[in-house]
């Protein structure tokens, strides 16, 4: 029988166990994205995933453990999406297309849900250090993709060779995450657009004339 280790409690899982666990985590991730972490109960997850409560407890000792699994899944999704979107960007125009895609996706819901990763960070960073460290790692990875873009911009002479690209990537991520939050409150994607555009304008202004 195929088994694989449960990444959280080290239990060996059967193929069926892996499937059940994935169903729980996917349902929880969707609920937490739409309602927020605090407003999602384990009963909600049981109802949405169609598993029994004892099955849920077999995989997760409590909500914190489930949230950690949601962070892993959400992180995987976001990093994959961003790797696809940023992996080959080597121009300012390419960065603007990346911005268009993020805005377009967020505008479909009038910005109501924000960034899946940013919302998790907002909800758990203060009370679960394991979750916080996982999020720190994920944001570092995402920012690393932006650093790679800036490095390519340096190689083509668009950005000056001595530009401090790591703080620049962190700053752009801050503008993006803050833009998501403002859009979420305004139920309107406009402040997100403004914030990313102004940050990109600043980066463009660093360009060697």
């Amino acid at each position: 029988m195929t088994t694989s280790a449960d990444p959280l409690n080290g239990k060996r899982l059967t193929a069926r166990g892996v499937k059940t666990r994935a169903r729980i985590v996917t349902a929880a991730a969707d609920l937490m994205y739409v309602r927020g972490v605090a407003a999602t109960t384990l009963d909600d997850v049981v109802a949405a995933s169609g598993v029994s409560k004892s099955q849920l407890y077999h995989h997760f000792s409590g909500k914190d453990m489930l949230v950690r699994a949601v962070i892993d899944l959400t992180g995987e999704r976001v990093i994959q999406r961003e790797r696809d979107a940023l992996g080959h960007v080597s121009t300012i125009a390419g960065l603007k297309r990346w911005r268009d895609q993020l805005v377009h996706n967020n505008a479909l819901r009038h910005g109501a849900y924000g960034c899946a990763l940013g919302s998790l960070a907002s909800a758990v960073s203060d009370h679960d250090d394991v979750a916080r460290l996982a999020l720190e790692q994920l944001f570092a990875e995402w920012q690393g993709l932006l650093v790679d873009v800036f490095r390519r911009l340096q190689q083509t002479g668009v950005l000056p060779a001595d530009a401090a690209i790591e703080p620049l990537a962190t700053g752009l991520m801050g503008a993006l995450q803050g833009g998501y939050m403002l859009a979420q409150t305004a139920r309107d994607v406009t402040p997100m657009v403004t914030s990313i555009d102004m940050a990109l304008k600043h980066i463009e202004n660093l360009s060697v004339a």
Partner: protein
Amino acid sequence: MKAHFAQVLARETTSLGAVTDAADLAHWRRGLIEELMTPRSPYAKALRQGGDTRDRAVFLDQWRDLIAVALAPVVESGGGADDGADVQRTAVLILAAVHGGSILSRVAKDAQPLNAALDVALGPLLAPADAAPAWTGANGPLGNMEL
């Protein structure tokens, strides 16, 4: 409106009201970072998502307007070509940088991300000595050599 929203707006009215030039703006920024990195500060509490969205929206609109009013003389004294619309847009970026930078700083347990976000948002407005900018020599000989 929530108490910490009102507290932040009252303090921002005073601190942003005192801004007349880039040095004042840099001073405001230092105080702001200190507040945001203090978990019990009304600033840190006000930035936590949650609660009534309409209250939060009103709070953010008012704070943004305070920032925009404070920016206007700094932009003018800097001889910037920015017009009123750009001041409004910069105020949105600053507010976003405050929010996004704070969450990244909470995740990292370090003020650096908040600093980096505010560098991007305020950098163009602050004199190099005040801003400690995250980049150098954009127009210097090294940069030009890359052409």
